């Protein structure tokens, strides 16, 4: 039979250990609350879809997206397409290696990594832009922000199946945005008022834990209705993947001078980017090239 003093002695000696256990279990429980999104995630390519990546991954870029654009913005898309037929560029930021912001930053052009902490989920995109921050610490929308391309993202973790572990990250992204922003390099535009709102639900596939779904809804004044698509990322099975350095400006052959875009030849000489393009105005140079 246990005598009381022995039990007391055990309780006394075990108390610090129990406290440590509780703290450690609490930390473990906290960690176990979040889903395993570790590793390198790659854009899932849909076979047979032509053109460069666009918002709806199941449809071709440009007009093929069948974006629910207002007539005014459909006309802007048409003009953007026409300018490219002529060899010129519209106001596409990519030509100067500038960021694209929302929603293009979600596409996974380069491998993507998620770092989940209780306060913030970081999405490392390693592309022209680098990091999205989704704040999950319960904060409200700040009032004094400068406009950005990626906007401000507030997220909420949800345990949908009630198993004690979060499985869905709901995100809302608002401005103030700045622009111009497009859905793709063909020029499907977002509204110039930059008042878009993006709502996302990100979750891991129930059947295949190596697929991550991102359902994105855009609410934008260039659209006749909210536009929802689901994009997928696929996990690289390599537990120690390579993260290549992507530096857009390195090797960019486009040169923007004023509003004109030119091209650089392999030997570094300026070339017209489209037929009959005038050379740059050299009025500030004393000497003329022989």
């Amino acid at each position, binding site marked *: 039979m246990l005598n009381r003093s022995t039990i007391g002695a055990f309780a006394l000696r075990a108390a610090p250990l129990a406290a440590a256990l509780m703290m450690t279990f609490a930390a473990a429980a906290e960690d176990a609350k979040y889903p395993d999104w570790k590793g390198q995630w790659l854009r899932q390519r849909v076979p047979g879809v032509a053109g460069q990546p666009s918002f709806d991954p199941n449809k071709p870029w440009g007009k093929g997206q069948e974006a629910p654009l207002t007539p005014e913005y459909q006309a802007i898309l048409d003009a953007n397409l026409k300018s490219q037929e002529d060899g010129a560029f519209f106001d596409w930021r990519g030509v100067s290696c500038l960021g694209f912001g929302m929603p293009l930053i979600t596409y996974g052009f380069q491998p993507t990594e998620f770092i989940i902490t209780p306060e913030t989920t970081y999405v490392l995109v390693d592309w022209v832009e680098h990091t999205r921050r989704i704040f999950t610490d319960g904060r409200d929308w700040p009032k004094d922000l400068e406009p950005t391309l*990626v906007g401000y993202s507030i997220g909420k973790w949800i345990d949908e199946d009630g198993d004690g572990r979060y499985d869905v990250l709901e995100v809302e992204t608002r401005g103030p945005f*700045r622009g111009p922003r497009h859905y793709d390099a063909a020029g499907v535009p977002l509204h110039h008022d930059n008042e878009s709102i993006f709502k996302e639900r990100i979750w891991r596939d129930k059947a295949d834990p190596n697929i991550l779904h991102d359902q994105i809804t855009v609410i934008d004044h260039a659209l006749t209705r909210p536009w929802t698509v689901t994009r997928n990322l696929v996990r690289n099975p390599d537990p120690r993947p390579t993260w290549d350095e992507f530096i857009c400006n390195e090797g960019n052959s486009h040169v923007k001078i004023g509003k004109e875009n030119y091209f650089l030849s392999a030997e570094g*000489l300026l070339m017209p980017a489209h037929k009959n393009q005038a050379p740059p105005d050299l009025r500030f140079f004393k000497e003329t*090239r022989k």
Partner: protein
Amino acid sequence: MLDRAVFGRLVLIAALAVAATNAAAFDDSKYPDWGGQWKRPRGVGTQWDQTKPSGLAQQAPLTPEFQALLEASIKDQAAGGQGADTHVGCVTNGVPRIMTATFPIAFVITPAVTYIHFEAFMPRRIYTDGRDFPTDEEPAYHGYSIGRWLDTDGDGRYDTLEVETRNFKGPRTYENSGLSLHPDNQSIIKERISLDKANPDLMHNEITSIDHALTRPWTITKTYRRDRKELWQDYECGEANNHVVIGKENYFLSGDGLLMPAKKDQAPPDLRYFKQTQK
């Protein structure tokens, strides 16, 4: 009576449970609090050694060849050129210059990787999972960083991150004077990052460069100050960049978007590919 063996077993089981749980979870309490944004101290510029002015005053232990290169760079800059500073094209300077923290930086610590976030560049990944340097990685401006956490004061909590970075590409410079690392890109950069013992809102990064442009390892210490209120801007180097690099020449854009010489008597670009001439 509870015998000692039973008691001992209970304690052992409890201790093992703690150890097992520790191994499973990210034990936040083991790592230092490096949260917030870290900025250069007020009044400190972007020179490499924060305690000295940039350029020749850095007194970098350069070989004669690289000392001459620095002097030529400074002379070219005085004439309106860029010298050996390559950042004009908005390509990252990589490690070690990126640790100047021209714009705020932030640390995110996980057991396997410590990430350093920058506004304008992709993050650095410092692997602390015990891996060795890989043999098949492409060289990078950031190099490849392996770190090790140290508990230097034995209080049970890590306080110092030791980092070694190798496998570079270039060109890389320490600062905008054009103070250059060797183009063989065989540099080894060692860092010791820790909070100030007296003021936890100051961080020190002791950086040692081992490079063939130097006559000996060069150690400097960067200090960063913490700002708990994180505010991240869209910093895009190319957005307001008025420099235009055409071939090997750097030109300037006027306020109205016209090409201008960046230095006196600079020749205009070769327009042989244009049929039409500008009126």
